[in-house]
């Protein structure tokens, strides 16, 4: 009986912990994330500058895509059958990790843990290891991200610009015990704003720096310099875009059609073909301009035909210049 109660208690504890963790995660939803959500909801209309630049860069590879054109290329291996965990920095807030567990190693863990293995949760433990040599126990703090058993990579919101991180892939046993399976390399996230450190020799007053920051970022001399200038500038410039925005890189100069607008369209152009034949050694003029003949004396010309009347005298002259003949088609085109 006591055991059962203990188990229930533990479960409740765990649940509370998880709720707490979730709250923490919610708190970690930095200003940046809120911006991102805004983008997703389409509240920010103008694409950021870096997005516009990407659109232009993309024009470099502007060729149509058609799938059948390319010969079949073999697939890359699904993995390399080894233990490996790599951590990469994405930006000041996010890090990315990918990993592989060797099948052999995984079997061994399964055998060691038996039932516990199947009740355990896969967890990424994210350690803040800023300015320390991490030995597995001395992190400033850590937080866990629960993942599914099939994931082999994960994006982690650290909400911690300017810090260093290390990640363990591990199992959280029902008992609460954490077993490390893999440990990543250490990466650092860059600062999300300017450094607070200034050096004596190159001292720069806050207000002057704020001004320089704004001018460099293209906000001109009216850029904000008062309290909170960093946030102001950031808001103007580095507002991130929703990922979907880039996937629809169409003509940036094209006006986006209103939602629900009908797309049907029709274009009609006309061209006129003037063709004929004469002696192969004759000379032919069309509207006064000499044209080339094919070796057999035939010719054909193709003209874009605008509205209006075209008078097209075709004059042929024999090689000895003694004979001459002119035929003049007159074509009127009218669009209604």
């Amino acid at each position, binding site marked *: 009986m006591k055991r059962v109660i203990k188990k229930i208690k533990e479960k409740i504890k765990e649940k509370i912990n998880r709720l707490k963790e979730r709250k923490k995660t919610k708190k970690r939803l930095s200003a940046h994330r809120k911006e991102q959500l805004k983008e997703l909801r389409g509240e920010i209309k*103008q694409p950021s*500058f*870096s*997005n*516009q630049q*990407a659109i*232009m*860069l*993309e*024009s*470099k*590879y502007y*060729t*149509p*895509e058609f799938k059948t054109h390319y010969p079949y*290329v*073999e*697939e*890359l291996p699904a993995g*390399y059958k080894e233990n490996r965990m*790599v951590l*990469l*920095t*994405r*930006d000041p807030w996010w890090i*990315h990790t*990918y990993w592989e567990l060797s099948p052999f190693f995984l079997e061994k863990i399964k055998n060691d843990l038996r039932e516990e293995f199947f009740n355990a949760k896969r967890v990424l433990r994210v350690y803040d290891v800023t300015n320390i040599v991490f030995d597995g126990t001395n992190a400033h703090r850590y937080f866990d991200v629960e993942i599914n058993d099939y994931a082999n*990579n994960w994006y982690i919101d650290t909400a911690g610009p300017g810090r260093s991180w290390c990640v363990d892939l591990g199992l959280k046993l029902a008992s609460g015990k954490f077993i490390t399976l893999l440990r990543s390399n250490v*990466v*650092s996230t*860059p*600062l999300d*704003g*300017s*450094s607070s*450190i200034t*050096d004596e020799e*190159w001292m*720069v007053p806050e207000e002057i720096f704020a*001004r*320089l*920051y704004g*001018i*460099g*970022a*293209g906000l001109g001399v009216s850029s904000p310099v008062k309290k909170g200038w960093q946030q102001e500038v950031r808001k103007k410039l580095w507002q*991130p875009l929703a*990922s979907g925005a*880039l996937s629809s890189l169409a*003509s*940036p*100069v094209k*006006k986006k059609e209103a939602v629900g607008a009908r797309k049907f369209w029709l274009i009609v152009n006309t*061209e006129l073909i003037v063709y004929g034949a004469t002696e192969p050694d004759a000379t032919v003029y069309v*509207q006064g301009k000499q044209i080339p003949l094919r070796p057999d004396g035939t010719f054909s010309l*193709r*003209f*874009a035909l*605008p509205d209006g009347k*075209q008078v097209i005298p075709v004059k042929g002259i024999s090689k000895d210049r003694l004979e001459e003949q002119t035929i003049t088609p007159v074509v009127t085109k009218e669009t209604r």
Partner: protein
Amino acid sequence: MHKGYLCLVLHSHLPFVRHPECDYFLEENWLYEAITETYIPLIRMMERLVEEKINFRLTMSLTPTLISMLKDQLLQERYLRYINKLIELAHKEIERTRWQPEFQSLALMYLDRFLGARDTFERYKRDLTSAFASFQDKGVLEIIACCATHGYLPLMDVVPASARAQIRVGIKVYEETFLRKPKGFWLPECGYHPGHDYFLKENGIKYFFMEIHGILHGSPRPKYGIYAPVYCKSGVACFGRDWESAKQVWSSIEGYPGDYWYREFYRDIGYDLDFEYIKPYIHPDGIRINTGIKYYRITGSENKQPYNPQMAKEKAAEHAGNFMFNRERQIEYLYDFLKKKPIVVAPYDAELFGHWWFEGVMWLEFLIRKINFDQKTFTLITASEYLNENPRNQVITPSLSSWGWKGYNEMWLQGANDWIYPHLHKASERMSELVKLHPNENDGLIRRALNQALRELLLAQSSDWAFILGTGTHTTYAIRKIKEHLLRFSTLYEQIKSRSIDPHWLEDIEQKDNLFPNIDYCLHQ
């Protein structure tokens, strides 16, 4: 007395696309279009400026992949075939538009451009790198080096040997091409990871360029913001990009290229004209593609109006004047404010000029001429000249940054392309392993295989593939390239490890991926 400097930087790059196994390969057009619309117009611009003795300074990077393609005989021949086809089409267009003078004048303009391109191409004996080299020798152009295949270095930090190989091979190609040591370096996508400046330092590089927040968010705070270079701890100088001048050109909305009088990039006769007529000039399978002949201006509405070169030219001049005016005001202000001559660094992707922004080269020429004749506030300068004049600068540690979407690594690390990194990093590790196992390989065949392995690894690392995957359009070719080079690498790795190299297959891929003929696999460490 002038009060500051403007440093114009053009970064020219295309990924290595060369398919001798196919008679026609669509993606090779990236190069041919860039040659016709960007590189040759830039060369002709510099020729005119030099001939008229106009004083100017430009900085340009030519990436090793681009250099390799420009020097490649097969691609040179194919370019001639390409431009000859275009010339033929332009002739036909002049006939076809006889009753539409507003279009015929444009067809004539294109014919003139294409003939000029072919002429320039032949004048430099089909090797355009020699043209750029000659301007460098004349002292008006400073060419800077770049990574071997434009690999994005911040995401290579797990296996630093690969980052170093990218840099070292890049510098080697530079030295072989331009017969001198490079002073400056262009980090692909301005991707800077703290510490990589040491790799530049050990290769004799004096400076590189960085995105604005790389410096502004550096530590300690940079006293002059981005208007003076800083030194990294390694002693390499680093210049930050000015966003004010960047946005005027780069922005598709508020920037110049979106002006309604400028030529519309997306309307091309390859799509507009009758299929039977245009068929010989599009993809042999009958797929419509861009030909490069475009008759319309942006207009500002869907009902596109014919392009008017005269009006566009006036706009380009006006925009050049506007850009200069803004720099004058900016530099005057900064000079009073900083009590020091500021340097404004304005880097752009070279292929933006002429290709996407048709009038871009014209704008640049107007700008250079105006700077020379119409003002005295600032002068053009290269970064190395600036450093000679101002050797004393603040030391800071710049911050991780790139000029890509959102300013960090996300363009190259997101759901659409993150699957490539386990493979790329594994291949990098294997390359390091091979170098360790073969510190000084004497067997000629194995040595060739080792060298080819490094080529294949570098090719897979091109930032272009990850970028294209990230944009989500035309991804098929990018996926193919990554897979193909990685698979070739893996096969080489296996064959080297078991010392059982298939000489015929090796020869075949050596001929396909034939860039960097003098590569040395030992550079990967």
